[in-house]
């Protein structure tokens, strides 16, 4: 028997493993983000800024326009928000985040991994929090990548965006999608089932989106706005007029969901 070095425990092993196992997926999502941005943003000079698009938009029912967030599509910031930040980027990062969040604990229990993991020297709370941290790292990486691509296309696509604006927009987008991802984590932590995690995360994303869309329709539903994470991210356009307090609220919500995931996992039976 080889008498060699005795391995000492490593820091944040669950986080390290989650990242090591998902870097391929992160790259794949980044490719998707790149494709979407490369498809939409270069079209701005020919669609958004020549007034033609604006006249089409003006002819549409105003409720539809505000639901789609196309009110301000004639500006680079409005166009970027309408096509990517509030739509495709939101959808892509939400799906990625929810699928990671739901798998992290709910999926792990279904695959039998959770029992063996938790039978080792890792606490439930650190397990859940490291998984939450892995969600932060992955979504932040995708958000940062999207920000860099937007900045790279800023000049050629004549978007006229500021660096600060793009940074705030990405912080808002990551915070918004992180809230759904951590909700999915908590759903999985509570139930031990992936599908419950997906449902919880999707509910947060969809309800938030719908509440915002309804609130845009006028005074009847305006009271919904404070309850929509989507509105916290985009009600005050982050590219031009970022509201640090409401963007901070998104991250706070994500932290609450992560804490809930840890507490829910801590108090229940596994398997």
């Amino acid at each position, binding site marked *: 028997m080889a008498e060699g070095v005795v*391995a000492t425990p490593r820091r944040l092993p669950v986080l390290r493993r989650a990242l*090591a*196992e998902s870097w391929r997926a992160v790259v794949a999502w980044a490719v998707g983000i790149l494709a979407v941005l490369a498809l939409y943003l270069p079209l701005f000079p020919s669609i958004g800024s020549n007034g033609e698009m604006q006249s089409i938009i003006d002819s549409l029912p105003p409720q539809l326009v505000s639901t789609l967030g196309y009110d301000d599509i004639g500006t680079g910031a409005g166009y970027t928000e309408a096509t990517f930040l509030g739509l495709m980027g939101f959808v892509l990062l939400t799906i990625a985040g929810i699928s990671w969040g739901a798998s992290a604990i709910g999926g792990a229990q279904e695959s*039998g991994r959770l029992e*063996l993991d938790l039978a080792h020297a890792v606490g439930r709370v650190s397990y859940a929090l490291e998984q939450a941290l892995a969600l932060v790292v992955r979504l932040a990486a995708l958000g940062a990548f999207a920000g860099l691509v937007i900045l790279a296309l800023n000049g050629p696509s004549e978007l006229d965006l500021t660096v600060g604006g793009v940074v705030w927009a990405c912080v808002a987008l990551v915070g918004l999608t992180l809230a759904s991802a951590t909700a999915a984590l908590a759903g999985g932590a509570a139930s031990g089932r992936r599908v419950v995690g997906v449902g919880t995360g999707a509910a947060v994303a969809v309800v938030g989106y719908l509440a915002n869309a309804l609130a845009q329709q006028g005074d009847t539903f305006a009271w919904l706005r404070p309850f929509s994470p989507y509105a916290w991210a985009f009600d005050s356009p982050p590219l031009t007029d970022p509201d640090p307090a409401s963007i901070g609220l998104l991250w706070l919500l994500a932290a609450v969901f992560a804490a809930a995931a840890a507490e829910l996992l801590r108090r229940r039976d596994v*398997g």
Partner: protein
Amino acid sequence: MCTSESAGPAVEVRGLSKRFGRHLAVDDLTLTVAPGVVFGLIGPNGAGKTTTLRMLLDVIRPTAGVVRVLGQDPRRVGPALRRRIGYVPGDLRLDGRVTGRRLLAFYAGVSGGVRSGEADALAERLGVELDRPVRTLSKGNRQKLGLVQAFWHRPELLVLDEPTSGLDPLLQREFLALVREARDAGQTVLLSSHVLSELQQVADEIVVLAHGRVVAEGDVASLRLSTVRHVQVGLGDTSVEAVQAALAPIGTLREVDVREQGGAVRVSATADGEIDPLVKALARFRVLDLSAQEPDLEESVLRLYGQEGTGG
């Protein structure tokens, strides 16, 4: 690192109960595992073995009762205690594209205390390739990875839940050797099984569980579990009548069936208790083949100790 720090029991369970909804999986269970022994937990499927072992690891929590593992409360001590335990879950499922080596490295990183080279040594001994993706491994090979991660840090306590399921007989032997070595090194082994012969070869002490309760305990010989056997014999150069006459005086036989088949006389019977009178009676014939099978454990537990049995 393999010696218990106190002379107290390695595992102590008192009045332990676990209820899942309306189902009482473990019912007021009390047992004590002395340090440095191989302790067998046996019982039919659904007897509460897995539930009990999971509570020792704090994977699930008791409804009532006291659990002390290596003198400590698993619920309160948590990770620091589990570092001193090696565990193979009853329902071990490993998957993913990672290799066995990466999978093991994760657990070494969580728990620490693994000597370098230990994984390879154990893997070689059990015959599992560490560099193949886990999802391409057979059930038996995954089970071997489970054994490696339980044994490789030489924990004070090994909790092994049906660890030989999926292993072929040669490897079961190697596994039993590992268990004996662990005991000789001062480690305590808590081993569950629904196969009696496995425990007979290695356990110092056995507890029989049925319906979440202890129905019998003691050393292997005193449990009488192995004394029920299904016997199949083929006899040549004789007749059904002669064989029936020879077997008639043996009081321990039940469900005797003697018939002519393919030029031989075939006997099928259940032997309760000593096998010796049957062997002596058969010896006067030409024995073509003979098999004495250990019965289904559930059958013997229920027969010997009854559904509500409490004796031992």
